[in-house]
């Protein structure tokens, strides 16, 4: 085998499968000791990529090199000595023992009609010890639980002693404990034995937790690659998975993890299929008045900005978690002219304004003053004020400004449901912004 530093090099791989482009123009590299998580939504081409590398699908274009050798020029057995693959599920023969099953992995190393020798027995023993089944090697595979079967499958793949391991959803059907255990095991093996592990994983948190690098596929194309920190962003999650996610940093590992918050409503106005067009809506909220409104608008597919709000206000925190643009002011200080400038920029950039029933005091009265100037310049919807709670703590100034806004073009919209319909109606089609494909 050559001493090339890259274990796997895929160049411009294109695979047509069942009459459609399953993979187009995918390139990636992976080196020894690396654990690469291959991720993407269902049907994005993760399994197809693994199957193409394994040679189970014939590429229409592109090359796959393993340690420098073009796999198209390798025999099946030569390929099987370099690449091992475990599908999501595989049948096991009736009455096969764990030892026999793991020994199947030695087939590519045997002469056509040869039998297993000491080297093969040693490799099988190493693999069985790696997956903690050396003691129980005579048990039947059929009697094992799902997690144990996953381990045995890993053992079979390890016994192949290949520089590249490919595992297709190795955590499928496993509970959370076994998921962590399985991936921890794969990572340890990859690092200690300097093998390259290419793992298809749909669970992004597991991918972020265990992978050195993440490769993101979307509809057969590679859309992002890099470390979990580099790759996972609110924009990518929205574009590829169509979700609004609360992306956080785990302080103990400094790795990103996410709480999926909402699926984006892909019926956003006027969008041609496959491409989303978003209207920008500016929300004036604060004091929790946007708690229902902001996530709902995000889910409906609007791009949102918020402000001006005070930092640590619950609506400001909500906006931060959703990763929206915000004009923010230091807590307990009146909104400054600098922040108002920022607010004006956001208002300028938006297609419509929504005003939540913000409790207003001297500190945020400036919002209303600014809104009065914009009442005729943008479609503006005001949600009704709470009937039983006071909201105006400015001695009537805020209430007067609100009246002026309603006279100057603002409309009161009674409910959030009506508001969504109102926005769909009011936002002009030419104002819709194309987003990344």
């Amino acid at each position, binding site marked *: 085998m050559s001493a090339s530093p890259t274990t796997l090099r895929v160049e411009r791989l294109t695979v047509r499968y069942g009459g459609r482009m399953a993979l187009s123009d995918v390139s990636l590299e992976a080196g020894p000791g690396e654990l690469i998580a291959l991720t993407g939504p269902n049907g994005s081409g993760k399994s197809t990529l693994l*199957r193409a590398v*394994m*040679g*189970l699908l014939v590429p229409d274009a592109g090359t796959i090199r393993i340690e420098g050798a073009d796999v198209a020029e390798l*025999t*099946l*057995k030569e*390929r*099987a*000595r370099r*690449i*091992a*693959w*475990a*599908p999501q*599920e*595989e*049948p*096991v*023969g*009736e*009455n*096969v*023992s*764990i030892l*026999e099953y793991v020994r*199947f*992995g030695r*087939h*590519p190393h*045997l002469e*056509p*009609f040869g039998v297993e020798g000491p080297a093969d027995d040693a490799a099988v023993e190493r693999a069985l010890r790696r997956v903690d089944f050396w003691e129980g090697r*005579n*048990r*039947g*595979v*059929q*009697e094992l639980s*799902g997690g144990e*079967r996953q381990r045995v499958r890993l053992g079979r793949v390890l016994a*192949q002693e290949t520089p590249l391991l490919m595992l297709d959803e190795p955590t499928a*059907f496993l509970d959370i404990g076994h998921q962590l255990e399985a991936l921890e095991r794969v990572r340890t093996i990859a690092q200690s034995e300097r093998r390259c592990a290419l793992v298809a994983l749909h669970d992004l948190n597991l991918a972020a937790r265990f992978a050195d690098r993440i490769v993101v596929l979307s509809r057969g194309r590679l859309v992002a690659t890099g470390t979990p920190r580099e790759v996972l962003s609110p924009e990518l999650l929205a574009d590829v998975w169509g979700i609004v996610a609360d992306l956080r940093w785990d302080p103990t590992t400094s790795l990103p993890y996410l709480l999926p918050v909402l699926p984006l409503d892909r019926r956003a106005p006027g969008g041609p299929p496959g491409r989303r067009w978003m209207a920008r809506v500016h929300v004036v909220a604060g004091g929790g008045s946007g708690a229902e409104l902001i996530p709902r608008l995000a889910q409906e597919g609007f791009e949102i900005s918020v402000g001006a709000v005070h930092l640590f206000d619950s609506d400001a925190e909500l906006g931060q978690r959703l990763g929206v643009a915000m004009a923010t002011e230091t807590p307990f200080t009146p909104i400054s002219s600098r922040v108002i400038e920022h607010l004006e920029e956001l208002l300028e950039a938006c297609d419509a304004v929504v005003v939540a029933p913000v409790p207003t005091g001297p500190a945020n009265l400036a919002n209303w003053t600014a809104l009065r100037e914009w009442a005729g310049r943008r479609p503006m919807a005001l949600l009704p004020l709470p009937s039983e709670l006071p909201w105006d703590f400015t001695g009537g100034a805020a209430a007067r400004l609100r009246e002026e806004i309603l006279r100057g073009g603002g409309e009161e919209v009674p409910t959030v449901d009506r508001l969504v319909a109102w926005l769909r109606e009011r936002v002009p089609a030419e104002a819709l912004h194309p987003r990344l494909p």
Partner: protein
Amino acid sequence: MSVRGQGPTSGTGVHAAPPADARRRIPLVYLVPGIVGVLFALLVASTTLGSVSIPPWISIAIFFHQATGGLIPARACGGLSAHQCYIWTEIVWQARVPSLLLALAAGAALAISGGSLQGIFRNPLADPFLLGLSSGAALGAAAIFVLNIGPAHQAAELPIAAFLGGIVPGAVIYVAATISRRGPETLILSGVALSTFFSAILSVMLLYNPTSDVSLTFWLLGSLGTTSWTDDGLVTGVVIVLGALLYLQAREINLLQLGPDVAQSLGVRPRRVVQRTVLLTTAITATAVAFTGIIGFVGLIAPHLVRRLAGVDYRVVLPLAALMGGILLLVAWDVAVAAIPPIVVPVGIPTAFIGAPFLIYLLYRRRTPGGSAAPVSG
């Protein structure tokens, strides 16, 4: 075991297959001598059965005397006239023993075929008889009789004609198993349909049989009675040579148990293994059928018993199934000879009496729906 059966949804309730404990196998050091011993004891004991009543000890003595080339003197003949001794020797050595040896060879042929087919199709119901291979071969061979092509019974043309007849069902099961995405029962049902179809054609042939030879009908139901040492040699030779070729693929058949994709990822060309195996099993089955007629279920039962006793490594299963098939057919032949003396019933009748309930047992034991006959790709 089905693919679906592995998921967490399959459950482990009443419908689960009984747990297969790999430790419950019999070690080969006991199993192989055991099977060989039973086989030999049966062979010797079977020499005592026949329509002519010969005292058992005399037939056994004659068998050992002849089998060792006269090294063991035939003491039993001591009290007999030379003429009587000559006749009994002829009966035992030229009539009974050739039938027994044909039983061993044909039993081995059917069991190897059944075992290999079960392996490549991951289908425990596969059997040359149930898949229609046997009746296709019988049709080919019968065409020689009925159409009076050449001097039948003499040359190698019977097995060749049988092979040609078996190619049609062979091709059909290959296509059914590799292309159709249906369950294992579908494969068997299409085999049964083919089998019925060929039997209908055979019946027509028999009705218009110009020779009106009753032995033909008998032969079709399975007959070991009209054989000779030459025929035995031919069948045995073919079974050994083709069986060895099948055996060379045993490791690949093992890997096919993991499904065609995983097998290919381990360096096996699934289609090639399936093609070769179907071709070889067709040839082996055809050779047996050409000399014995249609004998069902031996190829179904023998590999099953072996897998129960010895596990699933086809490098062990195939040779042991050959021995087990010999034992089964020998037993069936003994029953055929001894059931209603002095009539010898066709040997296909006792195998059907054992095999049909066994098939039903298998169908009910494997309750997992869907099944494992995944199509072979790549």
